[in-house]
């Protein structure tokens, strides 16, 4: 029994962190945000050199063949630096869907390009989870029609993975879809509205029926979104502790006031067990099938709650400065807030956990 990260995993995370420190400073994030840039070419290029887009893609298709826990560690780092690159859609949801449900031919044609970073894939699962303002996505032969909202990682995507009302999964080339980017509070990631009008599609077909594929892909996505929140919240806590140790009022460092110290302690006490929850859920996805769905739901929901708490408290510790654009704390705040809503809000996800346990 060893509930800890391996040396390789620690090294992976450290490598990604160092790269991000270097290439994803707040100044860079700020500039990207000003330009609505969510695929910073230099950063994405460096991450690609490390093999990050292929983390979950099997070595047979040019990827690294790692497990969801590794992807979660990367997401944690990306969240920690509010990185302006595609990841959850293009490097987690899409590759897993293609691997789980694609034919050999489909795997051959898509996975190597995703792994090498040559293409990215936007992902629209709204039809399966959390449909809002959609017109149903339907398929007819190898054509899809309809409108999908809040597709992820859409900027400069070469292809879109889209779920239909019947829980089928289709790949549609970007040229065959109409993309309307939607701008949310979180400027570090791109979401958009996709309209398909009899768009030619490549449907993912395999022995596995697509409902269970889709559910499994969503499990993975939830864990990785939770990990992103973990990283973002951890950064906000660290910033609050640093600030509380520097800022002086009444001739004292504010961290020596209990009201401030206790806000920091509460953030830490709430957040620290979340790390174990994310690790466990990620590990369960690959290794403990009976716990996978329920812990994915709980990781997603619990991190959403704790993330919001930390985002708010950290902002308070920073006082008026916390509310300014100047300090940039809000990038983390907003990333946590978008994560909360993605792939099912806490209330929906907990309801799903109730179903999984046969409570309803």
């Amino acid at each position, binding site marked *: *029994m*060893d*509930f*800890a*990260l*391996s040396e390789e*995993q620690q090294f992976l995370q450290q490598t990604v962190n160092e790269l991000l420190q270097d290439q994803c400073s707040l100044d860079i994030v700020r500039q990207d945000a000003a330009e609505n840039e969510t695929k910073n070419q230099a950063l994405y290029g460096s991450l690609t050199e490390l093999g990050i887009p292929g983390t979950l893609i099997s070595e047979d298709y040019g990827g690294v063949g790692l497990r969801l*826990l590794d992807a979660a560690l990367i997401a944690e780092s990306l969240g920690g630096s509010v990185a302006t690159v595609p990841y959850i859609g293009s490097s987690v949801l899409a590759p897993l869907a293609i691997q789980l449900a694609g034919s050999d031919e489909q795997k051959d044609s898509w996975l190597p390009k995703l792994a090498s970073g040559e293409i990215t894939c936007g992902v629209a699962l709204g039809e399966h989870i959390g449909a809002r303002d959609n017109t149903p996505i339907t398929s007819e032969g190898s054509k899809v029609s309809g409108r999908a909202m809040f597709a992820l990682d859409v900027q400069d995507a070469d292809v879109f993975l889209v779920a239909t009302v019947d829980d089928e999964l289709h790949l549609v080339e970007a040229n065959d879809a109409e993309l309307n980017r939607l701008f949310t509070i979180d400027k570090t990631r791109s979401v958009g509205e996709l309209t398909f009008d009899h768009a030619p599609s490549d449907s993912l077909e395999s022995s596995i029926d697509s409902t269970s594929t889709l559910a499994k892909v969503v499990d993975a996505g939830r864990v990785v979104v939770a990990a992103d929140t973990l990283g973002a919240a951890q950064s906000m806590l660290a910033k609050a*502790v640093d600030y*509380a*140790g520097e800022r002086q009022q009444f001739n*004292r*460092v504010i*961290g*020596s*006031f*209990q009201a401030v*110290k*206790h806000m*920091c*302690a*509460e953030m*830490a*006490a*709430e957040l*620290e*067990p*979340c*790390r*174990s*929850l994310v*690790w*466990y859920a990620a*590990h369960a996805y690959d*290794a*403990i099938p009976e716990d996978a769905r329920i*812990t994915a739901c*709980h990781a997603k*929901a*619990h991190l959403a*709650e704790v993330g919001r708490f930390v985002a708010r408290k950290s902002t308070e510790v920073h006082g008026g400065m916390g509310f300014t654009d100047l300090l940039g704390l809000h990038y983390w705040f907003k990333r946590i807030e978008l994560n909360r809503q993605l792939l099912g809000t806490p*209330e929906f996800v*907990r*309801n799903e*956990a*109730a179903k999984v346990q046969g*409570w*309803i």
Partner: protein
Amino acid sequence: MDLEYSSEYEDFRNELRNFLEENKHLSPGAIARPPTNREGSEDGPNPAQRWQQLLIEHGYAARTIPKEYGGCGEAPDPLKTHIIAEEFAKARVRPGHSGDNRLVPTVLELGTEEQKRWLVPPSIRGEMSWCQGYSEPGSGSDLASLSTRAEVDGDDFVINGQKIWTSGAQHADMMFCLVRTEPDAPKHQGISYLVFSMDTPGIEVRPLVTMTGDATFNEVFFTDARVPKNQIIGKRGEGWFVANNTLKHEREGLGDPHQAENRFREIEELMRNETVDGDPIMDNPTHRDRLLQLQGRMLAMKYNGMRVLTSQRKHEEPGLPRWIIKLQGCELNHQMAAMAIDALGELGTLYHRSDHMRAGGMWQQRFMMDLGLIIGGGTAQIQKNMIGERALGLPKEPKVEVKPT
């Protein structure tokens, strides 16, 4: 990350399961503390003591205590300790004990050879029970300000003063106690740690009724109580450091995740079985969502416990994951009890024998007792000070000289 247990541990677990299956009928009911020899009969060990003896023989209690002091003498293995806690909790069988999880480790670490032989074997057999005489009316969180005095007279310390909130003092055979022996030294350096029989002349125990209606703790008064000088653990004036050792052991015991998971299962059952207006509580989405939020917290604490355990196995300092256990674990327990009360509605307020009472009023009791545990063993606020200062490295409050009013 590897959550499989090696065959050594699987075998250990299976043996334990078999043992529990075969022997659990011998386990005495769920009494919170081992009964003492005062309650025991004159003619040999009582059922709790026999159960403890059986557990020691099989290596399921007092595992790491050396053989010469009556334990099993096994090498410390946090994983086996964890498996024991887990399996007893799952089987809902009363686990064994190591005498007193605060005192015994302290004596083993800091006591003399003579003290170890005197105190450890009967404690782990359940024949010598303990109470903790730390808090005083004027010294709770600020424990080091305590003023109960012990003055040397011949071969004895002579104790005068008062302790309060002393859990179990009315049943205990012995007390481990902090007293001021060096009144002129700075407050942390003038304290000594004494152990003595509760039968010592000059000790008076007055039960103190808690909000639960029971007198689980007491006031203890000392009037010229004489304790031989050799009943000091550690040196004179070093009692604060000895006590910190005990506090460390106590903190780890409160907020135990095994308990939380069991409790969660009990509430789940309750919500499936209890009905309001004819429908199971579980069908009410608001109640259900609250239960789910607690489940998320409970799981996070459970896996946090696995992380601490892994660090301990590797002899690494767990840091933050351990610092938060008392604060978060006790809070979670209290919130779970509150959830159960809310699921029961008015039934959850019955506090007198009634056919309508559920689970013998256990939830009502826990709801209050768990609030006590948020306060006892270092209040939530003191825990936050420690997390802030020791784990996050925030500065202490500036010391201000306040003249006593």
